[in-house]
């Protein structure tokens, strides 16, 4: 088996037993990227020199014999909305095409401290607004399972790189499903942590009350390994929550016991392909045979989650993206003769169509005359959704649901209709609105041979339980690997 197919845990064992060195490992990955990236288009910046330099530094640490993280020497990719000092961070937008951050995101600094090796920055939907990684100045990301299909979004590059063995793991960001959906489409594991669990410092903001960075990995154990490093309080992020340390790997294989799994009627009665429902139900039945108790639950307000999500996220985006004025950083229109013209033309030319649509929608929702009936209404719906989740969790341990109504769709199939992709996000946006942790774990293949994921949504800060259940699913269903 190629070294690039191995998980973090397997690769770490090979490094420690000296069957491979970090520089050789990094070179293997860089060679694979050279071969496959022209097709898959997951990387937009490849850090050849920096990667080898980091690999050499990691080898020294491994050779010193001191106790180090499993991530030492492990090659990774980062979604291109995570700031990396002195390395371009574009958000797949013309607006930031040449932007080189003078600082690094906390998550990147933590991974660097553990000796992880950055291979490059990963393609995405522009400013994380999208569900297919087609709205990008770099061209669409192609699904490694079938290059005619999307990899999902907005963390499509992050998902595709791991699925195609072009990174051992990656980080994505999730505002309305942007880790879970591409993870499902590409047959890997993707976790959106509880809001406040992972620092957002250095994540280019889309919707600040919804955004979270999370791991995208080949298996659930790797997800736990990465979470151990990236999660935890950060005083640079005012929304970071100071919880006690947890080892997410501990007890991962201790089984599910009499786990009470809630199945939201509103989601299971929503439109979805038969093979999606079949794969999810079949997986749940396997858990039931291990002792889990399946219970129907109701989340009535989840049916209004998509409009609420869109209004809140667009409103926050319209505020967050007001900083792009063409003056301090980012794209600048050179012909403007007044500062007013400079703002208007720089933003018109710097932002893509989807970004402009959302900024306009958010501006409208927040404007006088509509603020109460749109934005404030959405906030109230958010309260209802959070309260309904809390009520359900009084009697169940975890919620299970599909991730998306379909498996991956063909490139170009949905991009022309702004509403079509949006309404499909009903399975994922609820967890963002309520700030809950949610994970996608592979559970089968569609009739076209494309991956399907099952989603678990947990109580706040219950990632350890979710990882344990995800592990149990993985043991039952096996890992999905392309070509097998």
């Amino acid at each position, binding site marked *: 088996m190629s070294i690039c197919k191995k998980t973090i845990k397997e690769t770490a064992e090979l490094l420690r037993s000296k069957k491979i060195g970090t520089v050789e490992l990094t070179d293997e990955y860089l060679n694979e990227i050279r071969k496959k990236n022209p097709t898959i288009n997951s990387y937009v910046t490849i850090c050849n020199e920096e990667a080898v330099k980091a690999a050499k530094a990691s080898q020294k640490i491994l050779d010193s014999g001191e106790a180090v993280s499993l991530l030492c020497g492990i090659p990774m990719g980062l979604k291109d909305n995570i700031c990396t000092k002195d390395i371009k961070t574009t958000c797949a937008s013309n607006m930031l095409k040449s*932007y080189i951050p003078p600082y690094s995101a906390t998550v990147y600094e933590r991974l660097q401290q553990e000796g992880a090796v950055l291979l490059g920055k990963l393609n995405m939907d522009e400013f994380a607004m999208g569900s297919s990684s087609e709205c990008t100045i770099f061209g669409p990301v192609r699904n490694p399972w079938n290059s005619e299909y999307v990899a999902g979004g907005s963390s499509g590059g992050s998902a595709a790189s791991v699925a195609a063995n072009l990174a051992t793991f990656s980080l994505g960001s999730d505002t309305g499903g942007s880790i879970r959906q591409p993870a499902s489409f590409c047959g890997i594991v993707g976790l959106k942590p509880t809001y406040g669990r992972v620092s957002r410092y250095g994540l280019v903001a889309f919707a600040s009350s919804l955004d979270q960075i999370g791991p995208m990995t080949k298996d659930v154990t790797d997800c736990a390994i990465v979470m151990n490093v990236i999660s935890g309080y950060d005083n640079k992020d005012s929304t970071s929550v100071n919880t006690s340390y947890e080892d997410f790997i501990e007890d991962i294989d201790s089984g599910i016991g009499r786990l009470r799994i809630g199945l939201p009627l509103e989601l299971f009665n929503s439109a979805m392909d038969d093979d999606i429902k079949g794969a999810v139900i079949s997986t749940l039945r396997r858990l039931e045979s291990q002792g889990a108790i399946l219970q129907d639950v109701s989340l009535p307000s989840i049916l209004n989650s998509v409009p*609420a999500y869109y209004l809140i996220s667009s409103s926050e985006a319209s505020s967050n993206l007001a900083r792009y004025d*063409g003056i301090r950083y980012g794209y600048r229109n050179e012909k403007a003769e007044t*500062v007013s013209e400079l703002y208007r033309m720089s933003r018109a030319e710097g932002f893509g169509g989807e970004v402009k649509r959302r900024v306009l929608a958010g501006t409208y929702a927040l404007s006088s005359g509509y603020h109460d009936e749109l934005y404030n209404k959405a906030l109230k719906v958010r309260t*209802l959704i959070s309260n309904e989740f809390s009520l359900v969790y009084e009697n169940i341990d975890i919620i299970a649901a599909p991730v998306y109504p379909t498996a991956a769709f063909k490139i170009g199939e949905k991009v022309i209709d702004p509403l079509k992709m949006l309404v499909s996000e009903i399975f994922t946006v609820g967890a963002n609105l309520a700030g809950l942790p949610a994970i996608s774990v592979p559970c089968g293949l569609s009739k076209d041979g494309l991956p399907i994921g099952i989603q678990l949504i947990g109580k706040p800060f219950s990632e350890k339980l979710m990882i344990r259940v995800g592990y149990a699913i993985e043991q039952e269903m096996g890992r999905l690997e392309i070509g097998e």
Partner: protein
Amino acid sequence: MDKKTVRKMADVANIHIDDNELESYVEDMDLIMGYMEQLKNLHTGEAELKEANSLPSNGFREDFPHISPDRDELIKNASVTQDGCFKVPVVVEP
């Protein structure tokens, strides 16, 4: 959603829209906001406004002198600078 409303929103958002693009934006915005407006008539009872899931706390640092980041490093991403300042076109139009 009509042309006048989209133009007004674009003005507030400081985004220029060409005349030949306006129709397309009106169509898209009409579709999207039409969908969003289903919330208008929703009965939400006594539900409070929920803006965030964790209350932000101000991140104060200790008040001690320290070396500030290098100015040139901080402005290196600006397209047009002069004498360590951001340079812009005329602000107050004659």
